[in-house]
């Protein structure tokens, strides 16, 4: 008897759901973005956005004016994934180019450097090496932005968010008002 009641309730719910859904499908179409994506992929798309919303000082691209170099401090597979996701994209009229490094020294020619969590031990070295250079540093380790990195990913409610250290941004002679405004969290040097 109880079992039957349960099934009936379930069926009712399902029916109700169908009805409601039909009614609201139009309002939902507006928010027709993909609901889920792997974390690493999402971060790749963030990197593209970061690049597009940041202004570099004059002369930052003097060495290779047609390239926008994204550096990845991390594994081969981390680089590959970003490369795959952002293949064919450009920032302004500059085409994306990807460079992998196992030390920060190898990435000094990049406009943006992503320090993967696997390489968090190198964070102090990265920040020392890039000090004063117009390089947008992006991390994914707790405390990255507080210790002088510019942007840092974190996960909240199963979504990728980022925090920004505006002082670090201006020290690197970069401007990114939109990134500051959109950041859910602003942090200061510690």
């Amino acid at each position, binding site marked *: 008897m109880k079992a039957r009641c349960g099934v009936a309730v379930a069926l009712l719910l399902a029916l109700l759901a169908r009805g409601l859904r039909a009614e609201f499908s139009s309002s939902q179409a507006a928010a027709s*973005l993909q609901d*889920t994506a792997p974390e690493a992929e*999402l971060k790749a798309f963030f990197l593209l*956005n970061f690049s597009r919303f940041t202004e570099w000082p004059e002369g930052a691209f003097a060495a290779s004016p047609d390239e926008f170099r994204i550096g990845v401090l991390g594994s081969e597979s981390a680089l590959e994934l970003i490369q795959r*996701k*952002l293949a064919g994209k450009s920032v302004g009229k500059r085409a994306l180019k990807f460079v992998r490094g196992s030390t920060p020294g190898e990435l000094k020619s990049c406009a943006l450097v992503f320090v993967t969590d696997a390489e968090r031990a190198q964070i102090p070295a990265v920040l020392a090496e890039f000090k004063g250079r117009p390089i947008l540093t992006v991390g994914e380790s707790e405390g990255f932005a507080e210790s002088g990195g510019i942007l840092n990913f974190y996960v909240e409610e199963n979504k990728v968010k*980022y925090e920004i250290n505006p002082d670090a941004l201006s020290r690197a002679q970069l401007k990114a008002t939109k990134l500051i405004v959109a950041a859910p969290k602003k942090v200061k040097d510690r």
Partner: protein
Amino acid sequence: MQKLFLLIGTTLLFLARALAAQQEPEKKPQKPDQDLSELSLEDLMKVEITSVSKSEHSLMDTPAAVTVIRGDDIRRTGATTIAEALRLVPGLSVARLSSNKWLVASRGFSDLFSTKLLVLIDGRSVYTPLFSGVLWPALDVDLEDVDRIEVIRGPGATVWGANAVNGVINIITKKAKDTQGGRVTAGAGTQERAFGSARWGGMVGDDLAYRVYGKSFSRGPGKGVDDDWDGSQGGFRFDWTPRPSDSVTFQGDYYSVLADGTQTIFSAAAPFSQITNQATQYSGGNLLLRWEHELAPDSKLRTQFYYDHAEYQQPVIQELRDTLDFDLQHQLKLFWGQQLTSGLGYRWGRSTIDNTPSAAFNHPHKVSDIASAFIQDEIPLHETVKMTIGSKFEYNNYTGFEIEPGLRLSWRPAENHSVWFSAARAVRTPSQAEDDLTFAYTNLQPTTPPTLIRVAGSHDFESETMTALELGYRVQPLESVTLDIATFDNHYSDLRTSEAGPPDPSLLPAAVVLPLTFGNKMHGHTWGVEVAAAWQAMEGVRLQGGYTFFRMNLELDSGSTDLGSNTAEKNDPQNQAFLRGVFDVVKDVQFDLVGRYVSRLQGRGVGAYTEMDARIAWKILPKLEAALVGQNLLQKEHFESSNSSFSDHASQVPRGVYASLTWRF
């Protein structure tokens, strides 16, 4: 049985393929990658993360057998209790005795009071020192707001101290800032007769987040025993971050639970035993305050204080317990990349017991305390090799000073491979019952005159000890595949026995009394292999599996007069496996299937079984979700345990179906 399991496996795969095939033509016109790459920052931040989780990845480095169940996975399995959520952990065995009682054990010694497993909720121990064990009927959290459950199989004594012998289960709820806004869940079904929960979270200013919640449920009964389970619980949590270097958490819960069940009650006078059906009432509350402070960038201090009040009333025993616990932990980064963690702890407990004819304590008012300290250093020996070495030092009222050292090594030759090794000693300290209880029960085989067994605690009862060796390997051969293998070899000594004395004729002719006294005259050996694997088969399809192989050998010491404690070696399943499919192939629909197999429990006379749970959830609106869950679908009902050696009668687990609605606002 194996065939059935295989069948589930193929069905899962087939389903995945079929669903994916169906989806493909629809998806092609709007290639998801391109969609995402053109999303604005704001929209990107709304996309939920799928895939091999970061936690699985960050576990690569951990030199221990650890499983993390994320809150989302708990919800997606349709589990409504903590015990059921633990079925997805290789190395654990979870058996339902009745609708409100479980036998949960890690690496063997499964019992209603599995003495060697420590359970914590947000840092608060819920292991009762009365019996050494966890009162699962009284244990609840709002599962919707659980962040994760971390399960460490094997000894955790170096950090967590006594009783973290075979495992530690850490239930961690979300921070208040991650549970902002409102949520209401309501549901009903056959076994989950009716349930509801509500939560509201908000901010006071910029740096104080809070939430309050309440929940209520009515479950059961199982087949064969009138074992309904009804309860309510409510609580709150505040997280205050006045400065980046300080965070303060203040939280509390209150619960009241009524758990029915059939018990055989024994007494020292005729008729010696009778079967009753009486509810056990559990109620209690707790308050916890934690302050995390950064003294310097390389130095963190955590101070935690909690008060816990718990009472329960059942026919055999009634107890009121107050616990105060203070815990201090300091983390310091040192030269050569060392990470030094040290801690101090003090716990005070007061227990007030109402003696009954079947169970009596010589000291029904008992105050006990435990003082402890630990130190642990993580030392990078080489770029790829890390060593962790440490020990806990503990003082308790029963056995005095205990030392629990451990050594762990991890070697990560490449980003996607790691090998770890651990050696440790752990102890299980005596419970109040083992020290002080006198408990009467009649012989299970009726004799004339009846043989009345009287079990007595002893002040000479010592700690049970274990030395453990573990070896594990983790590999991520592809971006989409993780494999985690752990093996262990544990040696136990001074295990609990019940030593028989000469029969006592004082009650003749009504009964013969056989006196038993708790002793430590058994040693044992367990070994096993635990495998966990996850595979992101394609976008929106994740498969997860686990296998556990376990063996145990117990032997009485020479000179023991125990009548069969060593038969407990056959109480655990020798083989267990599960296979789970997580499907997100249709937009706004989540589909989950879990199949599990547990081999027979020879010592309990329980046969092997295979069962399956399924859940389908539909996001009707962005803020409204409906779910339909089927539990134990393969059989009308099945046994997972037999009557407990004390007095609880086992019921069969029936098939169950429930539906729920969740609304967020």
